[in-house]
């Protein structure tokens, strides 16, 4: 049985957790400050910075573009990743080690290098299709996560159940839908959600491939931080933090996947 930690350790843990939360809480406090510059502690109370941000068409445009991009990337990554995970786990494939190495290597090569290498290739090919470039770049980074998550769920599948269903007369498509699918679904959802988040938050790939028309939200946030100094940045930061909290709730409560499982 797990027992209560010793008090010294407990205090240490609380202090570290406070430091982890601090950079997410301080922007919240500063975003309501009624001053034309960032100051701690905040002075006065206003919500005008939120109004300003929400009315900003560039902020909205980038936000919705990122949602759209992450949606396309997730759909395509699942389309490639699920069959690949099935092939790797349920079939004898020669050179499996090498294939796994290739699939996981985008996680080792620094993203900023993958991004610049892609930019070079696209320039060489004379490509001007920015959206397609961004989708390809994000997919390279997202595929390893999807395949890892879906493979893990394929490996956990109890194949006796499939045999039992087949012996009892279920045709293969029924076995797939009623026996296999429920077992791999959590892995697919977890992989898809993580893929979406990785794409939505990506900076080091997008910074090379984006243009003014296709400007993902992380790049937009960065330009705002570089350029302006009033609390409207803090308001944007707060909105993004609320958005992340909402995601945590949706993932844990609605989809029923624990964060720990998803990120492992």
């Amino acid at each position, binding site marked *: 049985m797990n027992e209560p930690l010793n008090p010294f350790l407990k205090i240490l843990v609380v202090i570290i957790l406070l430091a982890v939360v601090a950079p997410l809480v301080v922007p919240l406090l500063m975003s309501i400050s009624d001053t034309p510059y960032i100051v701690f502690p905040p002075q006065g109370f206003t919500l005008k910075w939120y109004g300003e941000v929400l009315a900003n068409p560039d902020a909205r445009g980038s936000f919705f573009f990122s949602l759209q991009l992450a949606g396309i990337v997730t759909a395509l990554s699942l389309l490639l990743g699920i069959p690949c995970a099935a092939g790797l786990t349920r079939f004898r494939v020669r050179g499996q080690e090498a294939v796994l190495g290739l699939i996981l*290597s985008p996680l080792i090569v620094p993203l900023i290098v993958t991004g610049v290498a892609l930019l070079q290739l696209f320039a060489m090919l004379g490509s001007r299709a920015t959206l397609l470039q961004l989708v390809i770049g994000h997919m390279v980074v997202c595929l390893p996560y999807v395949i890892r998550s879906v493979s893990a769920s394929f490996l956990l599948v109890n194949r006796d159940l499939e045999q039992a269903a087949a012996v009892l007369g279920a045709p293969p498509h029924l076995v797939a839908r009623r026996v296999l699918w429920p077992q791999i679904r959590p892995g697919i959802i977890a992989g898809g959600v993580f893929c979406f988040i990785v794409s939505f938050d990506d900076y080091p790939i997008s910074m090379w491939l984006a243009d003014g028309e296709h400007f993902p939200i992380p790049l937009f946030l960065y330009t705002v931080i570089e350029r302006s100094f009033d609390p409207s940045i803090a308001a944007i930061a707060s909105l993004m933090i609320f958005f992340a909290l909402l995601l945590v709730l949706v993932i844990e409560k609605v989809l029923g996947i624990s964060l720990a499982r998803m990120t492992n």
Partner: protein
Amino acid sequence: MTGLSGAITPAGDAEPLLSRLWRAATDGNRTGYLLIAPTVLFLAVWFLWPVLTMVHLSVRAHSVDGVMVEGFTLQNYARLFATDLYFRILLRTARIALLTSLVAAILAYPLAIAIARGTPSMARLVTITILAPLLVNVVIRSYGWQTILNKTGALAWVLKGLGVSNPPVLLYTEWAVLIACVHVYLPFMVMPLAGAIGRIDRAVEEAARVAGATRPAMFARITLPLSLPGLAVGVSLVFSLSAAAYVTPQILGGNFSPLLGTLIEQQILTLNDWPFGAAISTVLIAMVLGANLIFLRIVSRRFSRWTAGA
């Protein structure tokens, strides 16, 4: 019989077809290859090819007054290692990556122990608090530290309240980059460590306690050595991620402490010097691969010695 059911229920038409497709997809030796081929092809074309081209570019050509000259050259690497300014950036990158791994490891142990050995509610609280920031964009997390480390920020205010008359301004220093990197990459240290600690046999801890070991002794002789595989994974992850960091050093270090990532961006987007940018990229890949090999190799060897007798 199939024809009959097909005639009665229109949906039945799909049944034999689906079955046939499913059987075709699950029988035979070629199926596995067919299933993985699209992904392998995709990554070969859009990952392997560009990265190898990049590495090739770094030794293939160099520019003289902006004109590309063909031939093999190590000049781009020589320039990186021989120019004081660039070499300092290289050293700083290695230093920040090492320090980030070290500090993250120290902070991660209490958290990992709390996750692996604490009460369920404690473990859940720590896990969520550690992982939730991963969903917040790294630009925002870095900006959060800016609001704390600023001249008029939260830290200065707290220090003033504590009676420090002239609080140091950390923003735009290496310290700020280090603090934020530790924060951003801490989860990647905590989770593998918690996994490793969770796998330690409790009987070992129990035996040590019965034999009268103090808590520090138990940590030094049991928890620490037996968690080394998790630590190795954590360190190689955090080192790789912080060596390649771009956004965090850019927001917190400004122009005063750039890392290799910033140098790549400057050389390519500002100066348009592709061969040199390619050389820096290659060095960055080598650094990350080297670190992975060293950390994982050393620890796996030591660990196998420890467990060999078991």
